[in-house]
């Protein structure tokens, strides 16, 4: 036996740096997308079961598919199902809006709530609700216009070939403050009608039913399909404006389309659920860390994750503090606020960059 064996490893040609025959993230993306879908379904089912009255799976089944007038039917079909569905689509819209906004602003902190896009939508929505209630059917459209105008203002104020983190937050604070003051003025001027919009303002899907679902579902479907078209734009823009231009891409046109898309999604969500913040920030951010920044995967994953987060949070908010129902917006702010602070803290170094 050789006692002084020299312990040097030699590498054969096939060894050395690992060669991949497919994308290094391919497996992880698949796992994340599949497990998000499954979890979303499971959590939605759980959300139908849980609450002041809890049901078993078979009772849920009866409630969903047996239309005779039972307790299950009234609670599961009339109350909980529309609420769960709205939770899913609102979450999808908010998270996609956040992801797209981050892509176009080139800024990971661009959340419709934080930068004031949601408030813009909210202000117009409140005006419709308390001054022109006859036009309530146009609520999503009105909220979208409010969001769009606000976003264009923010973009004009903060875009310098990119948006610095500091600048976008400052502009957002100012916009939120200005809109907040308009909002307060409205509340005082129309104090007799304010009661109706208060729960909505807190950001919740407490009172929603099939009416609200029908109001938004067509908008949602159109917006989510259009959102798929934004993937290509974001991918090219991510190469940087110059390179995108050099590849023949219409940069300005495309950025405008993306702003329209994200505000459409945010506006729809706001019109039914009021001011729910942080979903658009937290969900894409976490997913980006796991599956990377390719929007072909990040956007669908964010949509699924957003739906999941809102339904889960709403289920907790309405059952954990029984008999009090917390608006889901408050619970999400409770989680999202600290997360936001953590993100700012983490980027302490090159804070001015993007």
């Amino acid at each position, binding site marked *: 036996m050789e006692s002084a064996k020299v312990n040097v490893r030699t590498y054969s040609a096939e060894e050395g740096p690992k*060669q*991949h*025959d*497919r*994308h*290094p993230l391919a497996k992880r993306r698949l796992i994340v997308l599949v497990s998000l879908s499954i979890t979303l379904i499971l959590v939605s089912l759980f959300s139908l079961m849980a609450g002041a009255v809890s049901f078993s799976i078979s009772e849920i089944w009866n409630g969903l598919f047996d239309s005779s007038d039972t307790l299950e039917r009234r609670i599961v079909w009339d109350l909980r199902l529309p609420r769960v569905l709205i939770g899913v689509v609102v979450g999808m819209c908010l998270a996609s809006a956040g992801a797209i906004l981050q892509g176009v602003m080139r800024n990971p902190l661009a959340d419709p709530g934080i930068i004031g896009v949601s408030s813009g939508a909210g202000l117009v929505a409140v005006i419709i609700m308390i001054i022109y209630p006859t036009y309530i059917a146009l609520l999503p459209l009105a909220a979208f216009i409010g969001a769009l105008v606000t976003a264009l203002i923010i973009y004009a104020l903060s875009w310098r070939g990119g948006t610095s983190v500091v600048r976008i937050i400052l502009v957002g604070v100012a916009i939120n403050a200005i809109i907040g003051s308009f909002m307060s003025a409205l509340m005082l001027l129309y104090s007799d009608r304010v009661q109706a919009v208060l729960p909505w303002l807190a950001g919740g899907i407490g009172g929603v039913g099939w009416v609200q679902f029908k109001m938004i579902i067509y908008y949602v479907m159109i917006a989510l399909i259009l959102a798929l*078209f934004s993937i*290509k734009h974001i991918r*090219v823009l*991510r*190469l*940087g404006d*110059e*390179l995108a*231009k*050099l*590849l*023949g*891409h*219409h940069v300005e046109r495309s950025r405008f389309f993306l702003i329209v898309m994200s505000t459409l999604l945010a506006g729809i969500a706001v019109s039914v659920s009021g001011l729910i913040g942080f979903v658009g920030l937290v969900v894409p951010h976490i997913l980006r860390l796991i599956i*990377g*920044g*390719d929007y072909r995967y990040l956007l669908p994953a964010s949509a699924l994750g957003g739906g999941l987060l809102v339904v889960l949070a709403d289920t907790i908010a309405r059952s954990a503090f029984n008999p009090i129902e917390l608006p889901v917006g408050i619970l999400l702010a409770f989680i999202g606020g600290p997360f936001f602070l953590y993100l700012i803290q983490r980027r302490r170094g090159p804070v001015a960059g993007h």
Partner: protein
Amino acid sequence: MLVTKRLDFEHSTAFQLEDINLSIQKGEIVSLVGPNGSGKSTLLRLMSRLISPKSGEILLVGKAIKSMKTEDVAKKLAMLPQMLDHQLDLTVAELVEFGRYPHRGAYSKLTTEDKKVTQWAIEITKLQSFRNRMLHSLSGGERQRAWIAMAIAQRPEILLLDEPTTFLDISHQLEVMELVKDLNENFGMTVVMVLHDINQAARYSERMIVLKNGKVLYDSTPTDVLRREMFQSVFGIDANIYKESGKTFFTPMKLGKEG
């Protein structure tokens, strides 16, 4: 191939490009040299329509570039800017596929032709084994080749490169220069590149354009351009000029008086 006519451009009162009249011929390798801030990048950006001139015009294969469609410019002309974002989380193959972007319909998939060209670009830049590696995990030289692969996947007739070898070590610099030569000789690509290394410029190009303060001072063969007076007046240095196997080279000696 690419003609600039009485081109004027102004960044500010402190810097203007004045009266640039150049005609780049098909099949040429042209090097742009000059001190920092002399306007080399600005000139390439004008030529690639990233910025528009104050006056004058640019013709690309006979057509005024100003009135061409963005995607049509991109089918004929590719350019790699000086600053590239190396943190992109794309694989080499994904990056190179972007080179096909101007040739594709708005939302259409990669055609077999696109895939063939992508593969060709990857092979010619010797990146086959890096296809599925993330861009940020590559070495500087590999990364530079990946960017070039993207640009040539556009199948441009003319390729503009802004300092393609800066930040590379000497062997990787030569690798890039050999690649440029290969593209020119075997695929007829016209190349205009900004280089800092004047010896490399002299060795690899047939024509050198020297810029200073936004003006073209010399535009000729390396042998004509590499003269003591040029180094004096443009770079303010004393230089020794010598020839070897038909090519001209120089060695910087000392800072001379400002010319």
